[in-house]
């Protein structure tokens, strides 16, 4: 811990309400992750064979996009706290570009899955795959809506060194989406 932080009182970055939502979302995803992991124990061969049909390249690209998007959001908050709104806007735009890349890549993946005739009823693995990645996909879309609103307001000069609460609130939600994918990626795409 740095010396300055040692004397600062603890502070939750963002609104308490969004942290409660984050907690609820993480519990929901946690239950889904563990349901998947334990369901796999009943038919490891089926899960491994089905997982091998997934595109690992697509999964790793999406991981890099979400991590980079999270970093851009961190840089945006840092810039706005220094009253550099223009730089903050550019970082938010970069984060949105990463989010858009994720959405396009995921839509291509979903499209390929549908064209292969795979749906929720194909087998237990695909049911979890579509449910988990689909549920996560909608969270990315929601986080992008928040970021777009924050971008518009940052550009309009609403935020600065004295007012960055909303920005930190949106950032916390975006990072949650990243955190969830960090567990989802190896679980669904890599462990096969």
């Amino acid at each position: 811990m740095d010396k300055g932080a040692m004397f600062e009182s603890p502070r939750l970055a963002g609104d308490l309400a969004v942290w409660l939502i984050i907690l609820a979302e993480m519990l929901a995803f946690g239950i889904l992750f563990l349901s998947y992991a334990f369901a796999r124990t009943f038919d490891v061969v089926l899960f491994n064979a089905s997982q091998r049909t997934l595109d690992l390249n697509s999964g790793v690209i999406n991981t890099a996009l979400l991590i980079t998007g999270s970093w851009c959001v961190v840089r945006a908050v840092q810039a706005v706290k220094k009253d550099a709104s223009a730089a903050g806007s550019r970082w938010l735009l970069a984060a949105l570009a990463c989010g858009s890349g994720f959405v396009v890549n995921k839509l291509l993946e979903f499209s390929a899955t549908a064209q292969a005739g795979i749906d929720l009823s194909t087998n237990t693995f695909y049911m979890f795959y579509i449910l988990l990645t689909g549920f996560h996909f909608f969270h990315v879309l929601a986080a992008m809506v928040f970021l777009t609103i924050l971008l518009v307001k940052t550009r309009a000069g609403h935020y600065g060194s004295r007012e960055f609460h909303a920005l930190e609130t949106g950032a916390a939600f975006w990072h949650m989406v990243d955190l969830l994918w960090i567990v989802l990626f190896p679980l669904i795409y890599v462990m096969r």
Partner: protein
Amino acid sequence: MFKFSSNTLWLLLLMATGFTYWLGESGQVGHGSMVPVFLIFGVSFFKGLGVILDFMDLRHAPVLWRNLLMGWLVFVVGMILLAYWIGQ
């Protein structure tokens, strides 16, 4: 606890992702050995820790919130490892 600048952490997270990808592509996963499972989820654990502490800035948050999210990560990754061990 370890602390990196946001730029360094971003690069480390990308490198860790690259390592996970390489391990997945190497064909060493899925043959019953727990070593790659520990490696892959160990890397994910540290990636998650970096996001929680520094990207989410819970390093400077009240202990309760930091522990809630870190506890979630420990529990979820721990239970996943248990499930893979059972499914060996």
